């Protein structure tokens, strides 16, 4: 069976390639009726309320100019957030929340597109739909339109929320965010044609997104005007280079628009040339006899690919960002005001420590997403009916769960180790400090993973809510301080309780409390799993 088209080329998508798109779009929006509004609302609220926080923190133009200069002068901070292009509140919002919103719009888009294309084919649901009055290109079109709906709503929310500070600039920022989302929607559309697995399609797109973020970071570390070729290679860098509220370079928006067009056409070309359910990277035959003998071995076999990918990603990101640590203490010689600000912030060592801490905190938050996803493999195995025949063998539920949980918990430790090691290798100093600051993230990462264990064990129908909890924790810790959120809200995230290593003193109490909480949640989750019915169709 070949996955490629027969010798006679299919003319595009056959007759009426778009038939049924409207119905499929309604189906997609109905299935995403919670996902899309929540995502758009949360992101829109963060960006818009960010303006209020910046007004509160830096009320005068002089204060804003000071922060703009000092942030832009420091290459490490530039690598994290990009340069600041102006001293208006809007420019600071675009700087602090623009890239953040663009990246998260990209994540939303890739989830939506893969969910309505490859995932439908992988589960076999697409076959039933395609047998109806549905054109060959309709599913992809409906998925892209669903992503467009979400991104347009987000762009609108950002524009409307910031319009009071300059309608044109607000529109430029909204479009920069929304178009970045659409760039990755079309990247996901291509990935969905290439692979047979929805998980792999999401992973490939996320890897492209990660590379785009790293390219921008590396480019911005080198130059303070966003003009590095590396930045220009990155769709995330384009969003930054629109310079919303600081000159509004509209022509830059042509880049993402062109990328959407080119990638979209490529995806359509590919989808017209393959069979439903097949891909261009088709499955190869496997061994006729297997050596897998245990539930743990099966779990490893199912998860090793994704763990390898994540570990490599963390190692590379660690290497890249480790190279920027030196810059944290850069005091741009001719800028007296920046020097003053830095001295006030604690001088070179304090800045280096703060940068290391912020970076490893970021790695910790992303590792917690891995932990949750890895734990929820249990949920996926169960709802796809693959757990049932395994558990009908002489495999206890605890042993079945243990295989996946060991990978989730040890795997997230491995990720942080890889990131710490990468940073140490390119930073070249203080291995103990760097690895210690990486390790201290682990209790918070594990706590969120343990919450997923509890949900899966005790309330399996609500297991995916673990994504929401983890996402919220990450969002609170990532942008909460910049939003000037009250301490009570910041305390909701386990990351908020960790000692700020390096720099601050090690505090054992929160670490031990989180570890004890982790143990308790895992035990409760496993107890629930032993007692409850298996989720069946």
């Amino acid at each position, binding site marked *: 069976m070949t996955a490629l088209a027969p010798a006679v080329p299919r003319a595009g998508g056959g007759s009426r390639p778009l038939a049924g798109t409207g119905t499929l779009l309604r189906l997609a929006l109905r299935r995403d009726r919670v996902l899309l509004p929540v995502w758009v609302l949360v992101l829109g609220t963060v960006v818009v309320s960010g303006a209020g926080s910046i007004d509160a923190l830096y009320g005068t133009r002089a204060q804003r100019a000071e922060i703009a200069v000092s942030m832009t002068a420091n290459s490490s901070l530039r690598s994290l957030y990009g340069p600041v292009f102006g001293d208006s509140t809007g420019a600071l919002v675009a700087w602090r929340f623009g890239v953040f919103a663009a990246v998260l719009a990209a994540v939303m888009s890739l989830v939506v597109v893969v969910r309505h294309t490859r995932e439908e084919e992988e589960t076999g649901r697409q076959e039933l739909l395609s047998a109806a009055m549905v054109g060959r290109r309709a599913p992809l079109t409906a998925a892209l339109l669903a992503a467009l709906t979400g991104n347009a709503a987000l762009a609108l929310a950002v524009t409307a929320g910031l319009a009071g500070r300059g309608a044109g600039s607000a529109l430029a920022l909204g479009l920069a965010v929304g178009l970045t989302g659409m760039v990755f929607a079309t990247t996901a559309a291509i990935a969905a044609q290439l692979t047979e697995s929805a998980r792999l399609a999401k992973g490939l797109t996320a890897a492209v997104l990660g590379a785009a973020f790293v390219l921008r970071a590396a480019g911005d570390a080198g130059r303070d005007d966003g003009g590095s070729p590396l930045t220009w290679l990155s769709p995330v860098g384009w969003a930054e280079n629109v310079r919303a509220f600081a000159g509004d370079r509209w022509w830059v928006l042509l880049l993402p628009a062109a990328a959407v067009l080119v990638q979209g056409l490529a995806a359509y070309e590919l989808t017209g040339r393959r069979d439903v359910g097949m891909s261009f990277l088709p499955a190869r035959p496997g061994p006729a006899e297997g050596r897998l003998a245990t539930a743990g071995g099966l779990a490893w076999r199912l998860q090793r690919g994704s763990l390898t990918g994540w570990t490599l990603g963390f190692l590379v990101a660690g290497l890249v960002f480790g190279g920027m640590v030196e810059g944290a203490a850069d005091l741009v010689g001719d800028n007296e005001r920046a020097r003053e600000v830095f001295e006030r912030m604690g001088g070179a060592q304090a800045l280096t420590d703060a940068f290391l801490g912020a970076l490893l905190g970021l790695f910790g938050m992303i590792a917690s997403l891995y932990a949750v996803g890895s734990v929820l493999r249990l949920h996926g195995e169960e709802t796809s009916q693959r757990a049932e025949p395994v*558990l009908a063998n*002489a495999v206890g539920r605890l042993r079945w769960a243990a295989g996946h949980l060991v990978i989730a918990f040890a795997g997230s430790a491995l990720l942080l180790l890889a990131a710490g090691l990468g940073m140490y290798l390119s930073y070249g100093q203080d291995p103990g400090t760097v690895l210690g600051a990486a390790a201290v993230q682990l209790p918070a990462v594990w706590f969120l993973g343990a919450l997923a264990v509890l949900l899966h064990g005790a309330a399996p129908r609500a297991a995916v809510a673990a994504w929401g909890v983890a996402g919220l924790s990450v969002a609170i810790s990532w942008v909460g301080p910049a939003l000037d959120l009250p301490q009570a809200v910041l305390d909701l995230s386990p990351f908020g309780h960790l000692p700020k290593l390096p720099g601050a003193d090690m505090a054992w109490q929160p670490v031990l409390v989180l570890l004890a909480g982790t143990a308790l949640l895992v035990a409760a989750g496993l107890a629930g799993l032993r007692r409850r019915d298996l989720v069946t169709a």
Partner: protein
Amino acid sequence: MTNAITVGGLHKSFGRTHALAGLDLTVAAGEVHGFLGPNGSGKSTTIRVLLGLLRADSGTARLLGRDPWRDAVELHRRVAYVPGDVTLWRNLSGGEVIDLYGRLRGGLDAARRAELVERFELDPTKKGRTYSKGNRQKVALVAAFASDVDVLILDEPTSGLDPLMEGVFQACVREERDRGRTVLLSSHILSEVESLCDRVSIIRKGRTVESGSLPELRHLTRTSVEAELAAPPNGLAHLPGVHDLRVDGTRVRLQVDTDRLDPVLRSLTEAGVRSLTSAPPTLEELFLRHYADEAVAR
């Protein structure tokens, strides 16, 4: 031990749905037992309770004399299960899955495995999603038949097999019975049940409505009779147990409760029989009677 499976008064609810409402099921050791019922009548739920995947609300369930919930793991060494809807991992080959299931059950007979792969004409090198429904079922069937177990629990295992493979399946089930194994076979393919099963249980809405050997069940239903008589018949309509009587001159067609057959035949011979065909009730008729009842009840 005489009974491999004993289920009594089993209840199970999912939210407001009452899936099992006092189900009884007895399967003697060494028999092939047919488990019949309309879609959604509770067959798979019963099987999942027997496998310890679901916990019954009340009632008793015993598999090989033990509690399937509490002793699940030990019991599963002696039980092989084939689900109706076999889902495989995308990146594992069929052969890997067969060997994995076999080892998780405590080992499988390599020679028997090879023979079964041959007989079912299965390509074990293909991976998960590239198998058709029937081929996915073959993977689960080979794993089950190649295991050294006492009980086979098969939940609509042949819904995707072609007639040739259906024949191989039936031969395998007979071999299992000849080795003294117990088989619980849930199925909608009545010819399969008729040719394989020693005894049958029919369930409806989570309750057992009939249970017994096929001759016993036939006894409970109607025989159809068609006769060409020498003279028009007399008084047939008044005989107890006669249904759907149609008289067309000297041609007679009727259905009769099987235990009332004798007076009908006497009445026919009084009129003089020129030709007579009598068909025993098929399982299908038996089945349809219960299904139709349900359709009416709805």
